[in-house]
């Protein structure tokens, strides 16, 4: 009985219901996070830490900081704060590579022993770029 009543909904009523559902979906989009607006982080370069405090946080498809300076052989900790998997992988000869870091997980890699500048990307989302400077 109730089913037949629903079937008889007027087109205007359905239109209103449709509009409400669209508004609900769109409002759901607006309150679920800060929302990234660029493909790279804008944080300023960091200076080398004394003892194993080198970290990279990945959030909203960006490395924070995008440029990190560490000592040769330093252990760098990477935290993935996004909802998707990321990697921190040196371009070229792959001087370092965390492999896949699942959402919410942490990984580490060892900085190369030679001083220099090492660009890195996320191999899953190659538009994510950063630079590791080894001193």
């Amino acid at each position, binding site marked *: 009985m109730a089913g037949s009543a629903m079937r008889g909904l007027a087109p205007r009523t359905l239109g209103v219901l449709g509009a409400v559902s669209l508004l609900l979906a769109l409002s759901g989009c607006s309150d679920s996070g*800060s929302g990234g607006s660029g493909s790279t982080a804008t944080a300023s370069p960091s200076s080398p830490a004394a003892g194993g405090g080198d970290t990279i946080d990945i959030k909203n*498809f960006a490395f924070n900081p995008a440029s990190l300076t560490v000592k040769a052989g330093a252990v760098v900790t990477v935290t993935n704060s996004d*909802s998707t998997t990321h990697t921190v992988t040196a371009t070229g000869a792959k001087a370092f590579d965390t492999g896949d870091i699942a959402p919410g997980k942490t990984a580490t890699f060892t900085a190369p022993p030679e001083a220099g500048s090492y660009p890195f990307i996320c191999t899953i989302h190659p*538009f994510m770029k950063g630079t590791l400077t080894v001193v």
Partner: protein
Amino acid sequence: MQMRTAVWAARVLAAAGLAVDAYVHADLAPQYDAVKATFSQGDLFRIEAAISALAALLVLAWRRLPGDAFGWLVAAGGFALLVVYRYVDVGKLGPLPNMYEPVWFTEKRVVAVAQLVTVVTAAFLVAVDVRDRRHQRHLR
């Protein structure tokens, strides 16, 4: 009576699948604003969320062939795009960003399962709708 129960169960499952599809896409949209050409992937996720929410409503409240077919189309189209962009590096397509993401993660798996549930149950609903239409035509 059994058929009626099966139709209702299919309707609830199809709508639930679409609701999950809508929620997860809306939830992930802000992060995916970073993937952009003219439109961002976040924008496309919001559109998917809105269309899925509308389809869920139509499947549950309107309960007619066009609504059920729309629900099937939204789920099947969404699943096809998800799988394509999981395995094929499509590249930028005009104003659309390259949404290639060669990885599975929890939300993506949840959406894929939800869309598949809707594809199966909405197909059943469409088949029943078509059968009912034919039956009504015979009675006239």
